């Protein structure tokens, strides 16, 4: 997740530079405005990222008349433009992390004879709580807020759908997990 974040900050800066050369602090301001969403970049992170991009030949520095490091303007190279294009055209690898955790929980509950429905209901309540909060924030916010909240909401909704589906199949799953009528269930799962 960390790597992804760093990677995407790099590409985000590259993308911002495509519209024209900028100073470092300009880049930070633009980034915060558009992508910040409560997590602004440190200057240090900006400069370290730019340094890496510089090393890889994706940006170059144009010096302006005057002194000091702040007078450095960064411009994107053609290699940088190609990289941005490649990144945009590549699909992200879906991250099924939540399901695997929850799945583990559900299976564990079943194995230990606990009520797996309770696990799911608790998770649903929690998801809905978060979704209510996001919905409230969305209702008060501007378009950017709405889109970002919706992104989260759709993901949470997908999780919830999975929860419903699992809840509907708990009996089947229990049979398989605890080995009762295993042959029959396995037969259904692997025809």
């Amino acid at each position, binding site marked *: 997740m960390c790597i992804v974040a760093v990677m995407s900050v790099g590409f985000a800066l590259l993308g911002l530079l495509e519209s024209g050369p900028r100073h470092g602090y300009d880049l930070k301001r633009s980034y915060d405005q558009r992508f910040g969403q409560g997590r602004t970049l440190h200057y240090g992170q900006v400069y370290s990222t730019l340094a890496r991009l510089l090393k890889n030949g994706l940006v170059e520095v144009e010096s302006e008349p005057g002194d000091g490091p702040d007078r450095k303007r960064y411009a994107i190279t053609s290699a940088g433009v190609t990289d941005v294009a490649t990144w945009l055209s590549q699909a992200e690898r879906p991250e099924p992390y939540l399901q695997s955790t929850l799945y583990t929980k559900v299976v564990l509950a079943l194995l230990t004879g606990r009520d797996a429905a309770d696990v799911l209901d608790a998770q649903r309540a929690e998801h809905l709580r978060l*979704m209510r909060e996001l919905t409230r924030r969305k209702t008060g916010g501007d378009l950017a807020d709405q889109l970002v909240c919706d992104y989260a*909401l759709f993901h949470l909704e997908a999780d919830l759908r999975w929860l*419903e589906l699992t809840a509907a199949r708990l009996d089947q799953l229990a049979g398989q997990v605890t080995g009762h009528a295993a042959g029959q269930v396995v037969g259904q799962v692997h025809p």
Partner: protein
Amino acid sequence: MVNSANDPLLAADDLHLSFGSTQALNSASLRVYAGEVLALMGPSGSGKSTLLHCLAGILTPDTGRVTYAGRDLSAMSDSERSALRRTEFGFVFQFGQLVPELTCLENVALPLRLAGVGRRQAQGAAAGWLARLEVADVAQKRPGQASGGQGQRVAVARALVSRPRVIFADEPTGALDSLNGERVMQLFIAAARDTGAAVVLVTHEPRVAAYSGREAVVRDGRVREQEYAL
């Protein structure tokens, strides 16, 4: 009758209802408090609509009691329950609820006219609600000439026009795309808040349920109710 703040406005106790061999409700209990938005969730066929119809006095349970503002619905006559639905309740369904021959404005005015309000006054109020739900432009069109989203907004306006204390909504966005569904829910919930109406919202869409204050899950005719957080 005056209710203290903690008394539910509408309560179902231990409802049982079978359609032939299908047990649609199996000891279902539910509380609805004044002004709250309660989501009824659960897989399809679990008994959500049946429970809603029992709460609204459309169906009478085999056993169990439904009380509204302290009055036992099953002790009322059919016409008393009809009168209650006319004056205290509002309804939004998934589709097919607008009278195709009437204009949208007349559709919205219908509950008021049924309650005996004069035509002009009823249509005046209806026009206000159409505007509030951003569909003033379809007022003179028939439902068949309006889009699905507009139709649902008209239906919501109709549910609100008689200023009911409870609005029953059965999959109100079920036939809409997400954008239209979102907008209908936003307008609906905001208007319900303003009029102080409680909403019983049947839905299987979590994003729609997220407009509620609380959810209850129906499974196999039984309700798992979330505690009311004051």
